[in-house]
């Protein structure tokens, strides 16, 4: 537990060092107002990283998370166009996102197909569905109602609502992971599936629950995304699933499952979010930006890997303390 704690402490230090390095080139970046902007901009990534974290903990992966976001976002925009009130849209996208996640979960649970294959398939299906829904047409700013676009931007106690939603959900998921049987089941299933079965936890059902949660989060972010950027089309958030996985890995979520913390995933997402927001302002050639993003991810992962404790031994009867 100490090792995990220190990993997060080191990640926090890395974020501070990163901010200091950026501030040396562009001081306005660390102004409080700008940090709030960066936090808000990173909120979708943090929310999706929460979902992905849970899925990865159960030894699965959800590559369809960004496509789910895009499909739910498009559905939200279409419902808005049809005059559906906003609260109903929110409930609907969370439910639809959860249902799409449930499709992934059922295929993994009932048919035992590896999650990477299942979600690779559903990723394409979800994107294709957007095309079927719209014929490839865009939904643009002037086709969305003001209220629909205003919610994520509205300011409440100095922070945008989108940031508040993120903070509330991170707190809720943090509680769930540490204080509820389901939260512990996610870790148990990933940590040692056989032991989990003996403890009375259904591995498949737990993985199913993880996919539903990740899907519901993606559905909610779908609305936030479309409302924030005020545009919906087939390719929104294209390739974003890889950012989400990267955020989790940087945050110390073990890709083999069973280890990781909410704080880690949040910081992993923040690290990526800061890099993404800083690169445009520090005046680095765009031709180097992708290489720098990639190098930062690799460095963080290499660092995490080198600090990973060797496999946990549950029963160690012969250990003698000196």
């Amino acid at each position, binding site marked *: 537990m100490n090792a995990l704690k220190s990993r997060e402490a080191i990640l926090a230090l890395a974020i501070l060092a990163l901010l200091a390095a950026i501030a040396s080139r*562009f001081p306005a970046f660390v102004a409080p107002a700008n940090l709030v902007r960066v936090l808000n901009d990173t909120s979708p990534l943090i929310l999706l990283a929460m979902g992905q974290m849970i899925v990865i903990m159960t030894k699965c992966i959800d590559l369809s998370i960004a496509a789910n976001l895009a499909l739910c976002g498009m559905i939200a925009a279409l419902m808005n166009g049809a005059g559906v009130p906003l609260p109903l849209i929110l409930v609907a996208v969370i439910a639809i996102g959860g249902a799409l996640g449930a499709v992934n979960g059922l295929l993994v649970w009932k048919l035992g197909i590896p999650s990477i294959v299942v979600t690779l398939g559903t990723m394409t299906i979800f994107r294709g569905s957007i095309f079927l829904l719209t014929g490839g047409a865009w939904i643009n*700013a*002037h086709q969305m109602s003001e209220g629909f676009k205003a919610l994520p931007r509205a300011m409440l106690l100095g922070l945008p609502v989108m940031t508040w939603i993120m903070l509330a959900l991170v707190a809720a998921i943090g509680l769930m992971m540490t204080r509820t049987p389901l939260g512990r089941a996610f870790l148990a299933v990933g940590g040692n599936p056989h032991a989990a079965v003996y403890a009375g936890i259904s591995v498949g059902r737990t993985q199913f629950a993880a996919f539903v949660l990740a899907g519901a989060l993606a559905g909610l972010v779908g609305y936030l995304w479309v409302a924030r*950027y005020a*545009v919906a089309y087939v390719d929104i958030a*294209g390739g974003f699933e890889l950012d989400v996985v990267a955020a989790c890995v940087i945050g110390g979520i073990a890709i083999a499952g069973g280890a990781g913390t909410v704080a880690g995933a949040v910081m992993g997402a923040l690290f990526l979010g800061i890099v993404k*927001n800083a690169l*445009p302002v520090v005046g680095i050639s765009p031709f180097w930006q992708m290489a720098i993003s990639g190098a930062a991810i690799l460095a963080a992962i290499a660092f995490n890997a080198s600090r990973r404790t060797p496999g946990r031994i549950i029963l160690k009867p012969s250990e003698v303390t000196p």
Partner: protein
Amino acid sequence: MSILKTILTTAATASVLMAGAAQAEPMRIALVAKALGIGFFEAANKGAEEAAAELGDVEIIYTGPTDTTAEGQIEVLNALIAQRVDAIAVSANDTDALVPTLKRAMDRGITVISWDSGVAPEGRQMHLNPSSAPLIGNMIIKLAADQLPEGGDVAVLSATTTSTNQNTWIEEMNKVAGDYPNVNVVATVYGDDLADKSYREAQGLMQSHPDLKAIIAPTSVGIVAAAQAVTDAGKIGDVNVTGLGLPSEMAGHVKSGASESFAIWNPIDLGYSATMIAHHLASGEAEAEAGATIPIGRMGEVTLDENNEAAMADPFVYDASNIDEFSSVF
């Protein structure tokens, strides 16, 4: 090459012969869309009808497949050949797949040109591009300069670092930047044609260049994202977003004032010009050969390059005065 020449000569001779017969009945020009039901092509048809009315003895057959496939288009073209139309002007769903069918059409003496989306040179007599890279490059900086009588800093928000179209346009823009001495291009950034990255890059531009007066985005994803970023930053009126976009996607941002004006081809002009060219070639008044000049009515004239391609005109400028008319079109 000799085959091409033979075909061209045959086609030219045939069209001269046909021209004699066409005196009696109206010349039938088929305008073939990528697919029916697309606003852009419906608007092109409007332009074609306008040209037909101007020419007098022309009947427009506007047609196309129900979805954007080369197979569907080949069926449509076969039907047109069977009807013995005088000319076919096609916006192709595939550069190469239509070539055999179109060759057959030319063998039968039908004038064949492509417009908007081209056909390989052996499958048509000439191709009409909506515009050309130098015209576009000049237009995007002119759009920014026109709103900046005092001059100022502008930045370019492109697609990816490897987008051929955008890179060519920006290169052409930089070539003519000297003609706009007050306009200072301070940065070129890349939004990768992703809404979120473009939005972030636009925010970054406004932060790192506080005096920025305009963002030029020659990409439809970038221009919309930049307009939204300017709106969210409360900088409408300070930073003008311009470049290339579609009227239906930009209508809201033009009305909010985030974008004073932007440009893209005008489909009405394109349909009009394609019809004019088809008529002149089919009637034998003009020949499709490198260096030839073909008049296109109110649009002036086009000159064919060594690939028998021509550029119609500057991209058409859309602003608050005409955005409503076109936002329902495409």
